[in-house]
């Protein structure tokens, strides 16, 4: 029975324009982010460029042909500045150098600009050294680089980018999906209550079965969207080349899925309980505030702690079940959290989810057949042993 209910939720909801649109936007967005990563990290060798050289710059020609990691230049000698400019116009050379000035067709290419200036400088140094009678060895000694050690008080933060990406998925995606799907579930509960169809449903199935089926159905769709986020993140992390992705970031990926599922159980049933207490969609906005605030608080703490995630609010919040679905994976992605703390937080969240299922179940059973004015929390709690009307 519970699967029949879950299936209806999945079928009707996945047909809705809102779901299709939201999933499509997510999918395209994640693909776009992954493609940008690929583009940034693509390494197809130095770029081919052509430098036009007029008379006076000839002594720099040899140096200019050397090239570097990024650029593979070809030097072409042109007779006059006028011919050079003509070739700039038709695009057969990228820059024109006459010993005095660099001429561009339009905006300078910064990499090429720097390269040409450096090369000219090198050539000039070599020429002046020769003029002064310095040997190659003297020159090398003169320009021997001074090696400086780098000490960073933050212990090296090259990983900040990947940590932030993982924390973004954990924090933002979890918050957004819990909020959106929690509201969907609440609206669904109100729809059944307001249309009175719930009375026929409850003549066939128990309230726990009905609620359970709805949570499973919508939870499945929410999980699909969460996995789109996670897949995007994993692809992004795999494409990162220069930086070793820290183990705790990889660990935060399955962790964020786990906390998402537990958080969904926790928040979705709370939203459903709120939905069962009101009789009209119009009352939903104010009724859902007590559930929305703690979730929002978790997101707020995460958002304001990006620069310095190692603070007390994040630490405490990653243990409190109201905020831990967002803050635990956020903290695990941003910092190296001791394993026992992860385990303790997960146990607290799992236990709280079980308690919330019970609590929300009581509220739901008592409230769902009550029509008229909004059921209060106190009223629902007092009558928890005496379900429905």
């Amino acid at each position: 029975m519970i699967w029949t209910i879950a299936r209806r939720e999945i079928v009707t909801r996945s047909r809705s324009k809102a779901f299709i649109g939201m999933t499509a936007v997510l999918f395209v967005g994640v693909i776009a982010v992954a493609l940008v990563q690929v583009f940034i990290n693509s390494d197809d060798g130095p770029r081919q460029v052509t430098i036009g050289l007029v008379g006076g710059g000839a002594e720099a020609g040899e140096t200019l042909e050397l090239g570097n990691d990024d650029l593979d230049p070809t030097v072409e000698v042109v007779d006059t500045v006028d011919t050079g400019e003509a070739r700039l116009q038709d695009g057969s050379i990228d820059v024109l150098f006459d010993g005095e000035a660099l001429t561009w067709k339009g905006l300078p290419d910064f990499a090429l600009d720097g390269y040409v200036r450096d090369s000219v400088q090198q050539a000039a140094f070599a020429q002046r050294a020769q003029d002064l009678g310095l040997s190659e060895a003297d020159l090398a000694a003169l320009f021997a680089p001074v090696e400086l050690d780098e000490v960073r008080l933050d212990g090296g933060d090259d990983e900040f980018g990947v940590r932030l990406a993982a924390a973004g998925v954990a924090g933002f995606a979890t918050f957004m999906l819990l909020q959106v799907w929690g509201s969907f579930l609440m609206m669904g509960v109100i729809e059944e209550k307001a249309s009175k169809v719930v009375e026929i449903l409850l003549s066939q199935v128990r309230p726990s079965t009905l609620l359970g089926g709805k949570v499973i159905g919508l939870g499945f769709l929410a999980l699909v969207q969460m996995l789109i986020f996670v897949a995007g993140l994993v692809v992004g992390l795999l494409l990162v080349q220069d930086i070793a992705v820290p183990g705790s970031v990889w660990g935060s990926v399955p962790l964020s899925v786990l906390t998402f599922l537990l958080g969904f159980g926790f928040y979705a049933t709370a939203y459903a309980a709120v939905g069962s207490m009101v009789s009209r969609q119009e009352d939903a906005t104010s009724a859902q505030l007590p559930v929305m605030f703690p979730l929002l608080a978790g997101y707020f703490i995460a958002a304001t702690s990006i620069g310095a995630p190692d603070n007390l609010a994040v630490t405490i919040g990653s243990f409190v079940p109201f905020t831990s679905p967002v803050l635990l994976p956020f903290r695990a992605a941003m910092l190296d959290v001791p394993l026992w703390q992860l385990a303790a937080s997960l146990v607290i969240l799992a236990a709280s989810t079980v308690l919330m299922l019970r609590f929300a179940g009581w509220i739901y059973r008592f409230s769902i057949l009550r029509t008229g004015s909004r059921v209060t929390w106190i009223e629902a709690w007092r009558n928890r042993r005496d379900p429905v009307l």
Partner: protein
Amino acid sequence: MRPGSESDGLRIVDLAKRYGAVVAVDGLDLSVPRGGLIGFLGPNGAGKTTTMRAVLGMVRPDRGSITWQGRPIDDDARRRTGYMPQERGLYARMKVREQVAYFGQLAGMRRRVAEARADAWIERLDLTERAGSMVQELSGGNQQRVQLAVSLVHDPELLVLDEPFAGLDPVAAETMRRIIAERAAAGVSVLFSSHQLDVVEDLCDEVVIIADGQLVASGLITDLRSASATRWLRVRWTQPVERWTPLEGVIESFDGRTAVVRLDRDADVAASIADALSAGPVSEVALEPPRLDEIFTELVGSGHLRSKRTEAGS
């Protein structure tokens, strides 16, 4: 009604439920045998809906037992029950066929079977052309038909219908009446509440009347009639009579040629007729039992219910 054992069908014994200070049902006994068709009557707030919800497990009784086929009614038995709540409800944005089949599945039918049964009822109820429409696009009358299909799709053995005739146009009411009678004839136990007492009188032999959560009367309508304190004497003269004062009873209407007199049960009918004959030549004399609505008003309408409670019938 088929003969059956004590345990056959639905039996409610000593059902009680209160909400805070409000007593909804107070020691109610009621039974619906297999194939029985019981009209469940009572003024608003008498406890009919609470009783029906208790049968369907939506109200936890404070006291009493509800059994089906001799065993306490459970989820299994409830899945073989069809229910039409007083406040109708369907998914507005779900297609008719899908919706009817969905409720069949909820009652434990396989999808294919549920779809086939849905199609059968949709055809029977003249909804074939609207099978692919959303419920919200249907007229009120058609929505009622879908509601009926939902309560019947899983071939229930017990039908609990709360005001099934409320809001039906005459055509739909006739369809409803025929289907209810047909289901009962097929062995389904039917308990239905209604304020349309003419329909109840026409449809079923037996009624249960409650008020203030307690049984007021139950049994065959014919027995309730003979137990009733009232009957009507109708006299028609061949020629207009100037004035006539009946020997006994209260005159209800008199238009010169026809008089209707309300007589008490122990009134001397023969003396009253003789008295009418003495007023002039009579062409027609009839002694009529009270109609169901009159019995109902007599039993529950006068305000001091508790003193008037009677046990009548089989």
